[in-house]
């Protein structure tokens, strides 16, 4: 029988990457692992976008499985939107820090 469906695991790519970020680490190691996690998230969404694009090209040529194309495109949408949200937060956090008086 199936175990409980983990709704929080809906985006395995993003969730697993951000969860491996150990924010409790201090100093430069924290910065490195966070940057790594961000880089992985960004490249993950690029990979999904490329995959979705490749499948869409095949679909336009008439060669692809409908459901696979749909799934790839939706997955790309999800990771892209999450990546964009993260990027926006980072940018606004950076701007806020840069405005801090010394």
């Amino acid at each position, binding site marked *: 029988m199936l175990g409980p469906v983990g709704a929080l695991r809906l985006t395995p790519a993003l969730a697993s990457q951000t969860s491996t970020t150990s924010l409790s680490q201090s100093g430069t190691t924290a910065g490195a692992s966070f940057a790594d996690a961000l880089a992985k998230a960004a490249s993950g969404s690029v990979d999904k976008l490329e995959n979705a694009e490749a499948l869409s090209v095949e679909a336009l040529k008439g060669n692809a499985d409908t459901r696979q194309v*749909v799934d790839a495109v*939706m997955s790309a949408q999800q990771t892209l939107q999450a990546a964009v949200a993260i990027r926006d937060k980072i940018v606004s956090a950076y701007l806020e820090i840069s405005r801090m008086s010394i």
Partner: protein
Amino acid sequence: MDALTASLRIAASGLGAQSERLRVVSENLANAQSTGNFPGADPYRRKTVTFVSELDRISGGSLVDVSAIDRDPSAFRLEFEPGNIAADENGYVKLPNVNVLIEMADMTEANRSYEANLQVIRQARDLISMTIDLMRTS
């Protein structure tokens, strides 16, 4: 080829087979009274359709096809009609071995099977539409 497109293909082969069957039935009905045109001649002989299932290499499903259109070997009816061109020396005319009631029943069944295949096509088409609709942002 994905499975839903394959089922479209399969149902389309069903439509083709059933409409071939309907064509033969209507030919039988149209010629139910067709005699020969010289004394003692054979009349129209009833045609029958045989279906066979074929494995579709592309999709792995079972297509259907008409393997042969055969002639019904059963005997012709004889009717006493001395004035007819096709009457033999005793005045008997050979009439086609077509039974109108049987042909009508066959036609009804062919129609039913045709409708069922249409249903399958409609459903497969709808399922494909539903899948593509997932991508649509509402």
